[in-house]
């Protein structure tokens, strides 16, 4: 019965109908990347507090759109809203919107080079060159110099990227934009971009499937996906000059490294972050919470949820391979939560 009413609500909110609900029921929509941890959190939170939160993982873009139009109570996104979007939100709703980082994710380079079973090292120059189409052979000095002793073939590199718009692509292109001026000018960052080279696969499974099938290919997938599927992936040279393998610790360190320079509103990219062991292709994922709520009960429930998620909820994150928020960030978020009225 609960399931049935959930479906009904889903259908209604999809149709863009605001629900004047008597019981406490909160609707959210947005990013697909954190959906596994969010659904677990909502379930645990429901059991503990009786507040039901429905979340549609419709994508970051749709999440921003829906929260701006007021069809959901909160949104979620893998890339922070830009200034235009925030302005549009303020114009429409007469109040601001706040970003709250919840967990961390990362992108890892995965490849299929026949005869190479070692974990490869990638410099920023090599990654930018490969994805711009300039480094086109596996034995190019840009790759070979960082992988001494590995017998790299002289075959053409086949680049594989995501074909669907996704936060994973946003993080990847955000990183490439930071480390390569050419990438920034020619391609830029976004959930979908105009790729200079390569084939597109739908979703993490599409990319990893194409990489597995295509000899001499390279692609990128989320760390969680790579970890769950026990895929081999390469290390990436960070700002400090160390080759770092992505794992929960190195991703958390990237967030800690970036937290000192983090702006008040948490809209920060932590790719290429400082820190000796910081993994450079990491990112927050955010909840989008309106500054003012008309419904006090809803406001308190959402505030309680965010508070719980960034403190007690974090232990559940690691089980699902999401990196935890560093303590500095949690403290600042708890303070920022006071702004929600």
């Amino acid at each position, binding site marked *: 019965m609960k399931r049935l009413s959930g479906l009904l609500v889903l259908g209604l909110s999809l149709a863009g109908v605001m629900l004047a609900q008597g019981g406490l029921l909160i609707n959210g929509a947005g990013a697909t990347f954190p959906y596994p941890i969010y659904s677990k959190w909502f379930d645990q939170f429901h059991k503990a507090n009786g507040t039901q939160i429905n979340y549609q993982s419709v*994508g970051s873009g749709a999440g921003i759109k829906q929260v701006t139009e007021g069809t959901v109570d909160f949104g979620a996104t893998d890339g922070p809203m830009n200034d235009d979007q925030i302005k549009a939100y303020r114009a429409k709703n007469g109040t601001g919107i706040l970003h709250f980082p919840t967990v961390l994710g990362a992108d890892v380079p995965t490849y299929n080079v026949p005869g190479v079973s070692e974990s490869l090292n990638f410099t920023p120059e090599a990654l930018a060159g490969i994805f711009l189409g300039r480094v086109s052979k596996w034995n190019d000095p840009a790759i070979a110099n960082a992988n001494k002793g590995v017998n790299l073939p002289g075959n053409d590199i086949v680049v594989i990227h995501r074909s669907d*718009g996704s936060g994973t692509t946003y993080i990847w292109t955000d990183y490439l934009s930071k480390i390569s001026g050419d990438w920034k000018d020619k*391609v830029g960052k976004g959930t*979908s971009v*105009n790729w200079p080279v*390569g*084939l*597109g696969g739908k979703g993490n499974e*599409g990319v990893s499937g194409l990489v597995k099938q295509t000899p001499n290919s390279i692609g990128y997938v989320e760390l969680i996906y790579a970890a769950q599927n026990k895929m081999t992936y390469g290390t990436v040279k960070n700002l400090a000059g160390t080759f770092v393998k992505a794992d929960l610790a190195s991703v958390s360190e990237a967030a800690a490294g970036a937290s000192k320079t983090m702006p008040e509103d948490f809209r920060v990219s932590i790719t290429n972050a400082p820190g000796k062991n910081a993994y450079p292709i990491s990112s927050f994922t955010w909840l989008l919470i309106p500054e003012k709520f008309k419904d006090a009960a809803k406001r308190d429930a959402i505030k309680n949820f965010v508070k719980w998620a960034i403190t007690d909820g974090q232990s559940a994150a690691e089980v699902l391979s999401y990196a935890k928020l560093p303590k500095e960030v949690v403290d600042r978020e708890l303070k920022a939560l006071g702004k929600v009225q």
Partner: protein
Amino acid sequence: MATSSIHVPSADPVDNSRSFLSRLRNGDEIARLVTFLFAASVVLITVLLVYELWIASSLPRQKFGLAFFVTKLWDPVAEQFGALTFIYGTVVTAGVALSIAIPLGIGAAIFLAELAPQKLSDPLQFFIDLLAAVPSVIYGVLGVFIVIPLMRTWIAPTLKATLGFLPLFQGPAYGVGFLTAGIVLAIMVIPYIISVSREVLLSVPRDQREAALALGSTRWESTWKVVVPFARTGIMGSIFLALARALGETMAVTMVIGNTPSISSSLFAPGYSIAAVIANEFTEATGDLYLQSLIQLGLVLFLLTFILNGLARLFMLLTASRGSGTGRA
């Protein structure tokens, strides 16, 4: 299609002498009204669809105008959008699919309807109907795990070795691409062609065959020169159905086409289709211009279907006088 030629006595103007009430009592008028409403709803839905797509795609129309149709660039970051590569991919994959599916499908339908014994024909038909009901994502998986590896290791090298002088079969073969998408689409639409064509062939009157045989033609001559021309309208109908499915197919295509907006003379090259790009980018499309450009692509797909269907019908009309049948089946 042929409703105007069906003679319904109560709907005849001659019957106007009977009072409206008495006709109402007979139920004819009610049936007429209700079925008319059902038929009108189809037109209504089509009009509503076009209207909605038109309204929701005003921004790109103002910004790009007709250049939208001939621009190759699709850059969400710089907000420059053009549909040409997607139109090309859609038309090419549908073309490849039909050129494989039409001969295979019609050949199989002729065998099932005319030549095969009933004992074989009925179970085979059961399997064909089953194939038509398989969800497209299953065909996509089939494409990923069977057609793509076959393409890379066997089909592409063979084609290059034999027909490599044609620009169609040159360049690197990644496994994904126009040809792979066309083959998967062909597998998907063949059941439609077989199923509908077989029914049409079976409904050709027996005396047509007997007349041909009595005139001394062989069994194959009676089939190919009398029965098939008699059923050609219905067979064309099955091809329209196949074309519509091939143009609009999303899931299976996006899994095997390579999702790269490019125009290449090689069928091995990766491409992109309209339906695939809409499915891929719609959820994460931020910004009104981006979203509306995707909606405009939907409108383009609608137009494309309309035009191609129109051309196919025109072709049928132009060739209708050929053959011995009148084209009604």
